[in-house]
């Protein structure tokens, strides 16, 4: 089983330095791309590889790129932005790549930047990732020193500057348009689409925003080809995927596995199953803003197309397991508290609706629930739907709640009936 993204990450916790990275075949894709490939050839390879965005939405990367104006028609400067604002609860996959192999990301950005004819690239990094910030800063300096960044990279006609930007710290900054606003120094509020960032992105100029894991895949696609990349996957969606498991399992962690590995295999085999004394109750498969899955769903393949059939989403592919000794109401309260707090405050349903949801769940958890509360919660789940709100935050926020109301309804009802949390 090939693990292109993580195979070079050292087990001693140290980052892969530039010499080591080069020795392991690093920056070959850069040489190959700048040495003879056209930007269109790279975009075509990424498209053919069926690489889909690893930030959670799963939009095909090559198609995203194909919308950016190229050549003389394009307005400049053009920007490439790496979304490294990993703040989804339960998600820590980008951190591994950022801390373990920063040059892989930098190379991904150089190659992608070349494909997009970008003039300036930014890594928008979650501020709490201080170790990643330090290592990225060092890696960028190393890449500049060796001529992989800056004017006329490796003697080619292509120039790219790369800057590291530390987020001021809001979950909404992970939303690509809010990220762009934050990068401009404005309030981190999402923008309406259209216009898409490809038309009017950072400072109103053509911009592509990609996730860390997405960009880290690009050098491997360029290096070894689209067919090889597709062959890594169990499904139509190319490549490997870094899956993660947290919760009361024996070995919480991250594993790079073929895209489409079934959830049961990840939880039982790689995470070692539930800890002794704990039973499996459910799992949120892709970060906090996805719907719960139950035992009966675990044979589903973890990929962008299969999970919706089971009623959830792949999201970031990092699971949070709910065990049978933890109050599902408490878990949902914790999640919704996070989302309500992280609402940017721009649109009414998210700003007011999520706060109300939290107030109600909090009352239920405290034993102060009322009969009509569950109806109101269900109504809020329906009303906070995609398209009703300005961005995807609130619809994502109610996904775990909506499924919890479906799968763990008796727990909510017991809280109300028994006027308290049965787990306390």
């Amino acid at each position, binding site marked *: 089983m090939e693990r292109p993204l993580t195979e070079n990450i050292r087990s001693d916790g140290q980052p892969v330095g530039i010499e080591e990275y080069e020795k392991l075949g690093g920056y070959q894709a850069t040489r190959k791309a700048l040495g003879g490939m056209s930007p269109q050839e790279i975009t075509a390879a990424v498209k053919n590889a069926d690489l889909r965005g690893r930030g959670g939405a799963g939009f095909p990367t090559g198609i995203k790129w194909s919308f950016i104006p190229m050549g003389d028609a394009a307005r400049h400067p053009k920007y490439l932005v790496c979304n490294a604002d990993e703040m989804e609860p339960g998600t820590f996959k980008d951190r591994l790549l950022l801390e373990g192999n920063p040059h892989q990301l930098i190379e991904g950005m150089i190659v992608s930047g070349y494909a997009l004819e970008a003039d300036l690239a930014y890594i928008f990094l979650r501020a709490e990732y201080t170790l990643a910030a330090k290592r990225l800063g060092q890696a960028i300096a190393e890449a500049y020193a060796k001529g992989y960044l800056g004017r006329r990279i490796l003697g080619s006609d292509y120039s790219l500057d790369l800057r590291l930007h530390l987020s001021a710290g809001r979950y909404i900054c992970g939303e690509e348009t809010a990220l762009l606003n934050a990068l401009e120094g404005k309030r981190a509020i999402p*923008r309406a689409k259209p*216009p898409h960032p490809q038309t009017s992105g950072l400072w109103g100029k053509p911009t592509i925003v990609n996730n860390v894991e997405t960009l880290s895949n690009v050098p491997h696609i360029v290096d070894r080809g689209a067919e090889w990349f597709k062959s890594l996957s169990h499904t139509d969606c190319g490549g490997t995927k870094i899956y993660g498991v947290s919760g009361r399992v024996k070995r919480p962690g991250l594993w790079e596995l073929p895209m489409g590995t079934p959830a049961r295999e990840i939880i039982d085999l790689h995470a070692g199953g539930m800890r002794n004394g704990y039973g499996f109750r459910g799992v949120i498969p892709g970060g906090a803003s996805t719907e719960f899955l139950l035992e009966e769903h675990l044979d589903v393949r973890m990929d962008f197309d299969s999970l919706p059939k089971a009623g959830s989403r792949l999201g970031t592919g990092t699971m949070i397991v709910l065990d049978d000794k933890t109050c599902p109401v408490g878990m949902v309260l914790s999640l919704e508290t996070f989302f*309500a707090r992280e609402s940017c405050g721009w649109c009414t349903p998210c*700003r007011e609706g999520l706060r109300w949801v939290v107030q109600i769940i909090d009352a239920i958890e405290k034993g102060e629930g009322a009969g009509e509360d569950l109806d109101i919660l269900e109504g809020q789940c329906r*009303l906070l739907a995609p398209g*009703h709100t*300005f961005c995807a935050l609130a619809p994502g926020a109610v996904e775990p709640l909506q499924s919890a109301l479906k799968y763990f309804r008796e727990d909510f009802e017991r809280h109300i009936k028994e006027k308290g949390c049965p787990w306390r």
Partner: protein
Amino acid sequence: MATIYIDNKPYVVKDGQNLLHACLSLGFDLPYFCWHPAMHSVGACRQCAVKQFRDEKDTKGKIVMSCMTPAAEGTRISIDDPEAMEFRASVIEWLMLSHPHDCPVCDEGGECHLQDMTVMTGHNYRRTRFPKRTHRNQDLGPFINHEMNRCIQCYRCVRFYCDYAQGRDFNVFACHHAVYFGRHRDGVLESEFSGNLIEICPTGVFTDKALKRHYTRKWDLQTAPSVCVHCGLGCNTIPGERYGALRRILNRYNGEVNGYFLCDRGRFGYEFVNSGQRVRTPLMKNNETGALEPATKGDVIERLSHILYFGANVIGIGSARASLEANFALRALVGPDRFFVFDETRRRLMATMIGILKSGPARTPSMKDVASSDAVFILGEDVANTAPMLALALRQAARQRPMQDVAKLKIPLWDDTAVREVIQGEKGPFFIAAPHATKLDDVATETYHAAGEDIARLGFAVAHELDPAAPPVPDLKEEALLLARRIALFLKGARRPLVVSGMSGTSDSLLRAAGNVAWALCKTGHDAALCFTTDECNSLGLGLLADLGDGYVSDIGKAFALAEKGKLDAIIILENDLFLREDISRVERFLEGCGHVIVIDHLFSRTTGKADIVLPAGTFAESDGTFVNNEGRAQRCFQVFVPEGDIQESWRWVRDALNAARRPIQWRTFDDVVAAMAGEMQQFEAVAEIAPPAGFRIAGQKIPRQPHRYSGRTAMHAQIDVHEPKPPDDADTPLAYSMEGFEGIPPSALVPRFWAPGWNSVQSVNKFQEEVGGPLRGDDPGKRLIEPTGGKEVPYFHEVPGAFVPRKGELLIVPLYHIFGSEELSVLSPGIAGMAPHPYLALNPFDAEGLGMNAGDEGEVVISGNTYRLPITLMASLPQGVAGLPSGLPGLRGIVFPAWAKTGRAT
């Protein structure tokens, strides 16, 4: 045009609109908060949700925000879809979770957009039992009251204040449900457009603090269409009265003039009407004591009769803040050759201005035209202080060039966030040449700070660059020459170039230079507009009335000369304090030599102090009248309330005087005066058509000044008489002092208030417009009196002034204008008085150093024999050799600018 389907019925709408705009224009009641017709869509509040269907077969559809969805050909939507209706009611439910529900004690109550939208969506039951979020309120200064707990976070305030008006001391803070709108800390709002927050805010977060001191509900206010009297722009207003006092001013939408907004001087300057400075009874001088004493109207008329019947030589002085009708009446009384207007400087400027506008090819733009100009060149004018709303329009003009790029990206211009994102800090070509830094400099692409002569020379040079037939400027410095070339290049490249100048520069060279630039553009095939600011609400009207082009009508200086010859039996001064106009000692000498001094005015002044007879005039709120704004647009202002006692319109006093002089005149009503004026003076023919005449009725009814919910009619005078008095008749207009009458939409010039069924707030203006954001139904009111002659053959001005040469031992004192303080009437409003600066003398730092003075030192300046002691302020942008004095402040009145003066440390 595009056909869209709303609930399966086809409608034809204009291209390029969003669905909300289209639906509202079609008359649908679709609720909204964050959208504003002047500020467009951002999609924040989610209130305007509708169901959109792909095609006829699509029965499921999806919820979309109508404000963010193009009304493209074939678009199918449902407003009445149950899911859409449920969602819209839910939005109100969310907004109401933390709203305090304090309507009975909220100043917005009864005219609250949130109330209206709540009723419109049908939400009526509160399902939450949890605590509301609360906020701390701020003291935002004398104009705006802040009550954040009522906020529904529609972001309109911050979008207006920061994006539209480009203020910098207000913003949105915090996030999620703690979002807060205000200043970074308590303090007076710095923007001169802060008062618009009152109308922008859909609920009671920002309310009128001046109104609060004499609060009255909208339904209890008697209102009439009016025109602002605090500068020359003629913004349309709605003053509201109760119990004989003016309570507030609201915007009266006029698509061509002020649109949706007013400046704070216009909104809060009205309190002079209620002030203790008002002349409320006729006064006559007691010949023994020399004191002015109250008199009956009969006694006064009798005295007038003596004076005027026997007086062989009576002159009149007109007023730029009085109506055309009052001025015309006085002119008729004294005769055209004895009618004097303006001081010497203003007369000269006005003659030049009218000459340029009448004879040349450049059109005067409306403020709407100004806002759509894509290249601007300002000569010598501090617009933000002399004509504030023009500055707001100019701020929008600075975006027009970059907007052309936005359109190329196929981004709809109503998508405000996307438009601003593309524009970023880009601004169109915008050049300001002024004697000092101005508040508008932040939108300028280049500024040039120089003395008036040098600014005029720059203007002449620009004209020469545009058209070599325009005269060249000898000995122009290279820096100015290169700048002139750049300005010419950008003006030439624009689709709608605009040249701005005005009276405040006190130099006719500036006006001529501006004229040459605009003419050079017109002559070389460009559609150039030429905007001159005027200083008072009827300056241009008075100029046209006095026919300054002809030259036989004279300024006050000529009247002074007459008086020196000792020939004057009496002088009638209309709504004027001469001590503001000319040098104080000259005015003193003049009035002493005048025989009888008769003053018709509404305020006591130094001039009334010298009068033998003072006749109490009605203010704009107590009179009907016509004012001509700087565009040349004649606009009607209607009496809002009947003044107490013997106060009456100035023209009625003049009419009474005519009768007293046994020259009986047949003017019974206002329309009679207008007809006489329009008949006698060709330039005013259109004035009779500004508004329907007094006999106008709709379905036999007059238009009520009082709303249908006016309360207390039978009780408000009960302490005097329990019988309800007969309402006053209004023989002058089609408006009635009644709550009864025509309740629909009257002709645009007669709209006394915006109010429509289900729409109690100011947003009801939607229902009065042809299309939302467009002209009022039946076109925006007002008639333009000056149109360009199209005379491309008009010769350029050749009087290029020499460069400014500083003098040794003297400084050139120029006026510095302050929006709050420089205008005579508004400064009587307590809020505005509090915002006025203390008198000061502004010096260039090098001049100050030369005089051995620092900021804060007491300086002394001697202007035509009068000594002023003032603290020194350093103003780096003032040219060397030039000093500035605030114009019009109490204590600094009657200075004739510009003046050479000896300046030094106070001794």
